[in-house]
C-alpha cells in the first residue's frame, strides 16, 4: 500500500527547496570545513613524506666540528640499521650575487649522480641508479654543472633580483679563512634546483655570518672544495624509515633507534678524529720548529760580529776626545796671558786720557767765564752809550722849550705883578670911599662888597704869581738835572772801556794753555793705535788655535754620530731579531698550545626534526590541525542556528497540518519523525557533498598557500579522504541539525489538536517602554510601532538575530583585527611615536688587515659612503660587523669596511614625526636625472626642486639647492630636529614653533638653503 505520509514528506521537500538547501548548505560548509581542515594537516604531511622519500632525504645528519674522514664515513655505514651514508662538504660564505650580498651555504653535489637522475612528472620522485645519492635535487631550470666553477642555486628563494642562469656568484669570505676550504671564489650559475633538505624557502638554517640566517644554498662539484678537506657532515638514511610516515611516531621510533646507536658511536668518532687532526698538525709544527732553530743561530752570529766592530770604534773615539781636551786647556792659558797684557796697556792709556780730559775741562771753564765777563762788559758799555745818546737827544729837544717856558712864566709874573698893583690901588680907593659912606647905608654896603671882590682878585693874582714862579723853578731844575745825567753817563762809559781791556789780556793767557793741551792729545791717539794693533794680533792668534780645536771636535762628533747610529742600528737589529725570535717562539708555543688545546670535536647527531625546513613544515601542518580544532565549530554553531530558525518556521507554517494529523489520530512521534526525516535528508546530503568537495579543495588551497614558503610538490587529485574524520564531521553536522529540529518541533507538537487548529495565539503584545514616551510614540509611524513591539515580543528571534550578526561581525572583525594587530606590531617595532628600533641603518666596523677595528667617530660625514653601499629602502647586508644587536626587518647591518672616517648613524632617515620622509629607491618619475635622485616617502610636503631631484627632509623641509646644478649636490644637507626652519644667514637659523633647534648634520651650510622658499 502506498504511504501518503512518505509521499507528503517528499512533496514537502519538493515545495520548499530553499529551506532544504539552506540546511544542506550550512551543514555542507560546517562538515566540509571541519573534515577539510582536519585532513589538510595530514595531507601536507603526506605530501612532505612523499617528497622526502622520493628524494631520498637523509634521516639522520652527523655534523662534527672537526669533520669526518673517509674511513669514519665507512665506519658509520657499518652501524646496524644504517642504510646509506653520504659524505658532504659544506661551508657558509658571504658572497655577492647580482650586486647584493648573501650568506650562502655552499655544499658539494655529486654531479655525475645528479646528471644521471630522472624526475617524475609531479617533481616528487627522483630516480637514480646510485642508492648512495641522498638529498636528491630536482632541477627546476637550466642544467646541472658540467664543468668546474659552475653551481646550482635554490629555485625557491625569493631574491632581490631574480637569479638567472649565467649569473656569477662571487665568494667574499667565510666563517673562517676560505683558504684550504674552497678552491675557487667565482662560480657561474648553471641551473636552479629544488631541494627536500631545504623545503622552507624562508628558513634555510642559521650561520654565524651576516645577519645570522642563511639566505641561499649553492651546490658545487666536490672538486671546488680543497682536496684534503674532510667531510663536513655525513648524511645517513635509516633502514626501514622510508616505509614509515615521516614525522609520525613509527618513523620517529625507527630513526631514534639508529640515532641513539650513532650517539653511542659519537665519542669514538670524536676521539679518532681528534687524534688524526692532532697528529697532522704536530708534524707540521715540528718541521716549523726546526726551521726556527736554524734561523735563530744564524741571526745570533751576525749580531755578535756587529757588536765587536762597534766596540773598536768606541775606543778610538774616546782617545781622540782626551787629546782635544788637553789642547783646549793650553789655549785657555795663552788667552789669559794675552788678555792680561792688553788690559795693563789699556789702563795706562785710559788714565792719560782722563788727565787730558780734565785739563780740557778746566780750560773750557775758564774760557767760558772769560767769555761771559766779556759779553757782560760789552753789553754794559753798549747800554751806557745808548742811554747817553738818548739823554743827549732828550736834552737837546727839551732845552728850547724849557727856555721858552721860563721866558713865558717870567712874563706872566711880571704882568700879574702889575695887575696886583692896580688892584691894590683900587682897594685903597674903595677903602677910602667906604669911610665916606655911612655905615650901614646901601652905598656903604656896595662898597664893602666891592672891596671884598677886589681883595679876592688880589689873592687870586698872588696865587697866579706864585704859580708862575713855581713853573720857572721847576723848568730850571729840569734843565740842571738833564745836564747832570749826561755827565754821569759819560763817566760810566769810560769805566767800561777800562774793564774790556783787562778781559782781552785774560784771553791771551787762555789761548796759550789750549795749545799745550792739543799736543798732549795727539800723543794719546798714537798710544791707542799701538794698543789696538797689539790686541788684534793676539786675537787672531787665539782664534787660529780655537779653530783647530773646533775642527777636531767636529770630527769627533761625527765620529760619535756614526758610532751612535751604528749602535742604534745594532740595538734595533738586535731588538728586532729578538722580537722576531721571541715572536716566532711564541707562535710556536701558541701553535703547540693550540694543538694541545684542540678540543675533542663535538659530534652532533641530528635527525629531521633538527632540519629547519622539515620541522617548520611539520609544525605548520600541526598548526593547521590546531586551527581545525577550533575554527569549524563556528560553522557548526551557525548550522545549529540556521537549522533552528528554518525548522521553527517550517513547523509554524504547518501548524494546522500538524493539528489535522493529530486529529486524525497520528501519534506525536510519527509527526515528529516527518520533520526529523526532513532535516536528516537535508543534512546528510549536505554533509556528504560538503565533505566530498572541501576535503579536496581545502587541503589543495592551504598547500598552495604554503607553497610560497615550502617547496613541497603538491599531491595529485583525488586526495585521500579519511573515513573516521568524515564520519565524525558528518555525525556532528547531522546530529546538530536533528537536535535543532527536535527543539523546534517539540513545543508545537505538545499542543492539543484543538488549539493547533486555531492559528497560534500570538504572544500578548506587551507595552514597551518607548510607548510611555507619549510624544515620541505618537510621532512614530505604524510600521515602526509594529516593528518595535515585535522586537520585544519575539525575544528568541531577536536573540537569534543579535547572536547571528554578532557572530558574523566577530568573524569579520577578527580577520581584520588580526591583520591590523600584526601590522601594528611592525609599526610599534619600527615606526610610530616611540618605536623599539629607531634606526634604519646601523654602521659598524670590522677588523682590517692589522686586526684593528676602525673607530667610529661622531660628526664625520658618512652620507656619501652610506649612499654608495646602502640602497635605502632595499637594504642589503654588509656582514661580519657589529654583532648581537637587533636588526631591521629585511635590512641588515651595514659595515664600514673601507678607508676614511666613519660615523655612527643611528636614526638615519628615521621618521621622527609623521611628516618625515624617507628616501626611497629606485629612481622613478618622468624627469629622472642622475643616479642620486631619490624620492621621499612619508606624509609631509615635498618641494620639487628640479626634475627628478628631491632633497630629503628630516624635521625641517626639503630645500632646493641654490646653485642648481645637480652635479654640485653631492651631499644633501640634513637638518635634524623638529618644526620649520625660518630665515637666517650663513649657517645660522632658528627653528620656529618648536624649541628644539635644528642641527646641521652634514654638508656645508648654504645661506640660500635656509631661506624660506
Amino acid at each position, binding site marked *: 500500500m502506498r504511504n*501518503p505520509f512518505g509521499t507528503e514528506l517528499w512533496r514537502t521537500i519538493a515545495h520548499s527547496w530553499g529551506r532544504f538547501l539552506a540546511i544542506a548548505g550550512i551543514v555542507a560548509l560546517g562538515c566540509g570545513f571541519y573534515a577539510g581542515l582536519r585532513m589538510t594537516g595530514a595531507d601536507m604531511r603526506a605530501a612532505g613524506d612523499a617528497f622526502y622519500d622520493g628524494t631520498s632525504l637523509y634521516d639522520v645528519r652527523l655534523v662534527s666540528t672537526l669533520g669526518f674522514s673517509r674511513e669514519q664515513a665507512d665506519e658509520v655505514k657499518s652501524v646496524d640499521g644504517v642504510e646509506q651514508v653520504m659524505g658532504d662538504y659544506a661551508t657558509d660564505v658571504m658572497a655577492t650575487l647580482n650586486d647584493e650580498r648573501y650568506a650562502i651555504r655552499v655544499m658539494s653535489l655529486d654531479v655525475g649522480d645528479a646528471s644521471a637522475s630522472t624526475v617524475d612528472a609531479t617533481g616528487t620522485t627522483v630516480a637514480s641508479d646510485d642508492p648512495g645519492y641522498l638529498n636528491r635535487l630536482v632541477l627546476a631550470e637550466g642544467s646541472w654543472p658540467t664543468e668546474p666553477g659552475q653551481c646550482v642555486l635554490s629555485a625557491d628563494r625569493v631574491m632581490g633580483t631574480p637569479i638567472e642562469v649565467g649569473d656569477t656568484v662571487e665568494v667574499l669570505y667565510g666563517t673562517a679563512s676560505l683558504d684550504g676550504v674552497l678552491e675557487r671564489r667565482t662560480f657561474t650559475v648553471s641551473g636552479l634546483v629544488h631541494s627536500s633538505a631545504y623545503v622552507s624557502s624562508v628558513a634555510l638554517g642559521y650561520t654565524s655570518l651576516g645577519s645570522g640566517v642563511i639566505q641561499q644554498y649553492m651546490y658545487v662539484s666536490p672538486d671546488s672544495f680543497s682536496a684534503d678537506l674532510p667531510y663536513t657532515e655525513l648524511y645517513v638514511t635509516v633502514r626501514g624509515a622510508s616505509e614509515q610516515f615521516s614525522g609520525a611516531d613509527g618513523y620517529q621510533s625507527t630513526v631514534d633507534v639508529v640515532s641513539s646507536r650513532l650517539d653511542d658511536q659519537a665519542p669514538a668518532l670524536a676521539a679518532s678524529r681528534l687524534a688524526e687532526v692532532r697528529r697532522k698538525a704536530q708534524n707540521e709544527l715540528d718541521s716549523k720548529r726546526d726551521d726556527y732553530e736554524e734561523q735563530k743561530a744564524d741571526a745570533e752570529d751576525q749580531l755578535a760580529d756587529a757588536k765587536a766592530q762597534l766596540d773598536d770604534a768606541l775606543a778610538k773615539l774616546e782617545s781622540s776626545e782626551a787629546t782635544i781636551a788637553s789642547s783646549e786647556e793650553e789655549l785657555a792659558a795663552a788667552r789669559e796671558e794675552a788678555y792680561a797684557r792688553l788690559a795693563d796697556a789699556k789702563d795706562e792709556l785710559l788714565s792719560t786720557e782722563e788727565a787730558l780730559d780734565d785739563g780740557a775741562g778746566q780750560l773750557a771753564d775758564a774760557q767760558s767765564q772769560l767769555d761771559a765777563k766779556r759779553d757782560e762788559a760789552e753789553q754794559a758799555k753798549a747800554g751806557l752809550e745808548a742811554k747817553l745818546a738818548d739823554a743827549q737827544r732828550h736834552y737837546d729837544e727839551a732845552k728850547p722849550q724849557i727856555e721858552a717856558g721860563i721866558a713865558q712864566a717870567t712874563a706872566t709874573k711880571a704882568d700879574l705883578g702889575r695887575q696886583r698893583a692896580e688892584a691894590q690901588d683900587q682897594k685903597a680907593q674903595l677903602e677910602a670911599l667906604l669911610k665916606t659912606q655911612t655905615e650901614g647905608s646901601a652905598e656903604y654896603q656896595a662898597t664893602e662888597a666891592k672891596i671884598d671882590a677886589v681883595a679876592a682878585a688880589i689873592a687870586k693874582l698872588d696865587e697866579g704869581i706864585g704859580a708862575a714862579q713855581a713853573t720857572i723853578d721847576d723848568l730850571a731844575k729840569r734843565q740842571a738835572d738833564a745836564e747832570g745825567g749826561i755827565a754821569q753817563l759819560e763817566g760810566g762809559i769810560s769805566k767800561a772801556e777800562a774793564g774790556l781791556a783787562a778781559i782781552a789780556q785774560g784771553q791771551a793767557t787762555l789761548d796759550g794753555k789750549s795749545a799745550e793741551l792739543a799736543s798732549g792729545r795727539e800723543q794719546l791717539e798714537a798710544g791707542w793705535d799701538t794698543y789696538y794693533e797689539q790686541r788684534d794680533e793676539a786675537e787672531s792668534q787665539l782664534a787660529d788655535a780655537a779653530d783647530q780645536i773646533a775642527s777636531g771636535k767636529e770630527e769627533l762628533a761625527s765620529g760619535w754620530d756614526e758610532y751612535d747610529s751604528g749602535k742604534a742600528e745594532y740595538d734595533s737589529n738586535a731588538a728586532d731579531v729578538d722580537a722576531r725570535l721571541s715572536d716566532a717562539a711564541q707562535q710556536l708555543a701558541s701553535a703547540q698550545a693550540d694543538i694541545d688545546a684542540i678540543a675533542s670535536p663535538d659530534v652532533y647527531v641530528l635527525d629531521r626534526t633538527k632540519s629547519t625546513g622539515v620541522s617548520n613544515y611539520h609544525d605548520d601542518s600541526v598548526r593547521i590541525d590546531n586551527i581545525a580544532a577550533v575554527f569549524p565549530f563556528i560553522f557548526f554553531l551557525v548550522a545549529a542556528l540556521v537549522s533552528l530558525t528554518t525548522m521553527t518556521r517550517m513547523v509554524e507554517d504547518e501548524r494546522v497540518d500538524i493539528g489535522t494529523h*493529530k486529529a*486524525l489520530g497520528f501519534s506525536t512521534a510519527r509527526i515528529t519523525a516527518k520533520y526529523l526525516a526532513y532535516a536528516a535528508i537535508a543534512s546528510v546530503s549536505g554533509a556528504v557533498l560538503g565533505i566530498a568537495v572541501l576535503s579536496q579543495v581545502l587541503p589543495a588551497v592551504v598547500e598552495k598557500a604554503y607553497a610560497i614558503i615550502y617547496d613541497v610538490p603538491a599531491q595529485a587529485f583525488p586526495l585521500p579522504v579519511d573515513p573516521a574524520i568524515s564520519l565524525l564531521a558528518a555525525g556532528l553536522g547531522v546530529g546538530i541539525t536533528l537536535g535543532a529540529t527536535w527543539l523546534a518541533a517539540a513545543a508545537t507538537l505538545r499542543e492539543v489538536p484543538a*488549539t493547533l487548529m486555531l492559528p497560534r495565539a500570538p504572544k*500578548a503584545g506587551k507595552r514597551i517602554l518607548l510607548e510611555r514616551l507619549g510624544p515620541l510614540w505618537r510621532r512614530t509611524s505604524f510600521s515602526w510601532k509594529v516593528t518595535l513591539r515585535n522586537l520585544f515580543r519575539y525575544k528568541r528571534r531577536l536573540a537569534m538575530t543579535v547572536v547571528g550578526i554578532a557572530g558574523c561581525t566577530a568573524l569579520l572583525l577578527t580577520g581584520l583585527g588580526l591583520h591590523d594587530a600584526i601590522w601594528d606590531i611592525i609599526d610599534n617595532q619600527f615606526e610610530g611615536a616611540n618605536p623599539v628600533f629607531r634606526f634604519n641603518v646601523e654602521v659598524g666596523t670590522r677588523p682590517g688587515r692589522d686586526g684593528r677595528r676602525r673607530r667610529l667617530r661622531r660628526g664625520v660625514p658618512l652620507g656619501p659612503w652610506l649612499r654608495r653601499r646602502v640602497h635605502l629602502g632595499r637594504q642589503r647586508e654588509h656582514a661580519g660587523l657589529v654583532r648581537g644587536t637587533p636588526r631591521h626587518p629585511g635590512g641588515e647591518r651595514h659595515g664600514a669596511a673601507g678607508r676614511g672616517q666613519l660615523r655612527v648613524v643611528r636614526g638615519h632617515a628615521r621618521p621622527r614625526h609623521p611628516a618625515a620622509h624617507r628616501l626611497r629607491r629606485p629612481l622613478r618619475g618622468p624627469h629622472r636625472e642622475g643616479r642620486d635622485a631619490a624620492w621621499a616617502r612619508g606624509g609631509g610636503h615635498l618641494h620639487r626642486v628640479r626634475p627628478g631631484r628631491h632633497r630629503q627632509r628630516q624635521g625641517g623641509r626639503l630645500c632646493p639647492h641654490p646653485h642648481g646644478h645637480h652635479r654640485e649636490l653631492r651631499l644633501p644637507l640634513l637638518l635634524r630636529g623638529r618644526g620649520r626652519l625660518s630665515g637666517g644667514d650663513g649657517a645660522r637659523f632658528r627653528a620656529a614653533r618648536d624649541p628644539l633647534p635644528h642641527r646641521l648634520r652634514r654638508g656645508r651650510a648654504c645661506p640660500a638653503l635656509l631661506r624660506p622658499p
Partner: protein
Amino acid sequence: MAFVEFSDVRKTYRMGEVEVHAVDGMSFSIEEGELCVIVGPSGAGKTTVLNMLGGMDSCTSGTISLDGREVSSFSPRELTLYRRYDVGFVFQFYNLVQNLTALENVELASQIGRDPLDPAGVLAEVGLGNRLDNFPAQLSGGEQQRVAIARAIAKNPKLLLCDEPTGALDYTTGKQVLSILQRTCVEGGRTVAIVTHNQAFEAIANRVIHIREGRAAAVETNSRPAGADTLEW
C-alpha cells in the same frame, strides 16, 4: 447508559485574569445510531463541546463517556488511539492536507484505521469518484468538504462529529453534504453529531440539543426525522 454521556462538563479558558466558561455544566446524552444536531447561538460553546467529545481537547471538570469508556480521563496516548479508531471529525474549514490529492487525503486517514473502508469507494460514495487525483486546491469548497467527510468516514469510526459542515457552502451543496451525512447515519448505522446554528437542520435529527451559554438548554427527540432532500431554508 446512553452511547454518549456528558455529565456536568465544564471547560474554562483562562486568559490572564479573565476566566471564560466556554462550557459551564453541560449534561446531555446521545443514543447510538442517532443523528444528533447541536444548535445554539454563536459563542454558546458548540465547538468546544464537539472538540471535547472528539478527544481533541480536555475538559476542566465533569465526565464525558463514549460507549461506556470515560473519555475525559484518557491519557494523551489513549486520546490519540481514541481519535484514531473511534472518532471521525469533519472540520468547519475542511483541513485537508494541501500536499496530498483527494484520494491520498482519504488514504492518510484510512491507513491508520482499524477496519478502514476503501478510500476510492468512499470518495465515489460522496460523488467524487472522478476527482480522486485532484489536489485540494483544485477542488471547490463543497467538494473539499465532501473529501473531508469521506476522510472522516473512511476510518469507519463509531462516532462522526461535524462542526458546521455547511457553514461555508451554498444551499444546494449544503443539502448534498447533509444528505451524505444522513445517509452515513441511517445506512451506515453510525452515530453522527452535527454542530450548526441553522435551526432548519433540526428537522432531520433524531435528537436536537439546544445549547445556550455553555449549557444544554433543551433536548428534543424526534422519532421520525425528515429526509435531508426535503429540507428547506
